[in-house]
């Protein structure tokens, strides 16, 4: 059976196709988020099916997740990102006991039990300062692309101190740092450090290992290192980290269809 997961995130839509017999991912795709979320998601699903050389009609179960999940009315049901990320991560790395997800506009921490069930979770969604949006704002301020921001951080010798709890104020703080002549490398590293520290607070003191890292921000060079320093332990980026939520949704869709 083929199922689909749609992760309607704050910045982008992600789709994953899953073959439940072969326990295999058949395809993944991503599109920018927009006003007509449902149509964009439907188009993306068509595209991913086409690329995987599959008939759209062959897709049996669909689960939507992410902030926009309730807008995807053609999905059979909705499940929160927390459960979907945990399920996706469990498929990719069953040994993982803690999961950090940093997305476009929030960050999450999940403590996982054996079998991938969520034991506890925490979310930072009050402010974008612990999220990918923060990196975008800083990259824009430094006049570089997102990829280049990661590379810059790798070349830094130390990280600038960025203490603001809010993206808007942090941007002001960065303007100040630039005016003082602090190199862009240090600012890039400072921003990553600030995000990592915020996530470490979210994770709390009794974090279990191994730790998996998902979400679009996991693709950013330097972020893993920043997280490892903040948590004082190894962090493993899961394969194709931006699709973990969509994958989990697809796996859960397969499970649901079997039950019915």
């Amino acid at each position, binding site marked *: 059976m083929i199922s689909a997961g749609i992760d309607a995130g704050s910045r982008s839509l992600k789709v994953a196709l899953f073959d439940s017999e072969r326990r295999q991912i058949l395809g993944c795709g991503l599109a920018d988020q927009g006003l007509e979320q449902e149509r964009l998601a439907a188009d993306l699903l068509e595209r991913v099916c086409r690329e995987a050389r599959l008939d759209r009609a062959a897709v049996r179960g669909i689960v939507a997740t992410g902030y926009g999940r309730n807008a995807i009315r053609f999905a059979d049901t909705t499940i*929160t990102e927390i459960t979907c990320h945990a399920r996706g991560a469990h498929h990719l790395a069953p040994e993982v006991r803690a999961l950090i997800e940093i997305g476009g506009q929030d960050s999450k921490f999940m403590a996982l039990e054996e079998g991938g069930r969520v034991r506890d979770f925490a*979310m930072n969604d009050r402010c974008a300062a612990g999220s990918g949006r923060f990196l975008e704002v800083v990259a824009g301020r430094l006049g570089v692309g997102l990829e280049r921001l990661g590379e810059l951080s790798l070349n830094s010798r130390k990280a600038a101190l960025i203490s603001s709890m809010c993206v808007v104020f942090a941007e002001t703080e960065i303007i100040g740092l630039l005016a003082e002549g602090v190199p862009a490398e240090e600012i890039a590293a400072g921003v990553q450090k600030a995000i990592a520290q915020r996530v470490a607070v979210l994770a709390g003191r009794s974090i279990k290992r191994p730790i998996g890292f998902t979400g679009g921000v996991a693709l950013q060079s330097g972020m893993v290192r920043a997280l490892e320093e903040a948590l004082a332990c190894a962090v493993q980026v899961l394969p194709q980290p931006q699709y973990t939520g969509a994958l989990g949704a697809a796996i859960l869709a397969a499970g649901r269809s079997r039950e019915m």
Partner: protein
Amino acid sequence: MATIASANQSSAATPLEYFSRMVDHCYDAAEAAKSQGRPLVGIMCEFTPREIILAAGALPVCLCGGSAGTIAAAEQYLPANLCPLIKSTFGYHVSGSNPFLKWADLIVGETTCDGKKKMFELLAADRPVYVLELPQKAEDPDAMENWVREVRKFKEHLETRFRVRITEARLQEACRLMNRERELRRQLAGLMAADAPSLTGRELLEFKSLISGLEPDLEQYAQALEWLGQRRAPRGTTASAPTPVRVLLTGVPLAHGAERVLDLIEGCGGLVVCMENCTGLKPILEDVALDQEPDPVRAIARKYYHLPCSVMTLNQRRLETLRELAARFRPQCLIELVWQACLTYDVESWRVRKLAEELRLPYLKITTDYSPADSARIAGRVEALFETVR
């Protein structure tokens, strides 16, 4: 969350419908009291002994603000980063939009938290305010004696202010009235212990009144018990709707108008089977034990002294209460609500979380205020919590 229509579609108002007009009834009662020369005493904390107020011939009315609408007015005087309950209450004063606050002949302030304590100073500039000092060290042997003295002083203050003599007989009468009210409300809350309760947590929250000790209210509580005994369990609109997740809600009170988080929890498929907070079971768990204490003032003081408020250190009793309530109401998870800037509940939540872990109850803390801005985010967390339970 919509209230569920009664199975019996008779035209007579149900007790639930009666309490949906609770503010109107209180308005009428307050107006009648004023015309009879009975004073109105505003209170803002469950520590204030309503029995003393009733024994003075006055009506105790809760002034706690639950409206987001009055907060902007309050912020002209108070810092933005303050508990919404305090701001809303004070906002009602500034805007003059709470008739009970306007009519109150006396406002009793309580030192339950620093924010309130300082707000009362501003309120006292325009209104007669009497501050009750609460004990802070719950287990200190002197604390109870100090509290008895404080309650006695309060009684004397009311006697002087309202030129009445608060006799033992009047105190005993007031205690019996309040005990009866608490007993009825306790029984209503106890209905939620059933496997399939005949009401929602939101409906249960309706069964309370801003003014305590009103006979028509007590009659309606008794009728509600009968009515709910016959009512079928409200379930989702479709047969396929999953069984609701049983929730124990703890933390800050849900002042009238500030029921948003409860609505979100039950809107996401939860059933709040127990509210361990000041608008729930906390203040009605214990009665004034007149049979164990010959001096009614002391008996009253003892009842209130036992309130497991987060202002107490060490507030061990709250954890014990939660443990007992969890055993009795069998929740599947524990949700703690903390109003923004409520330091005592916020810090104490760490101990509640630890207790939840020990009881193997998934735990979620929600920190918010009265603004609906974060409703979608709160709902998302609650849904995720329920997914971990199911």
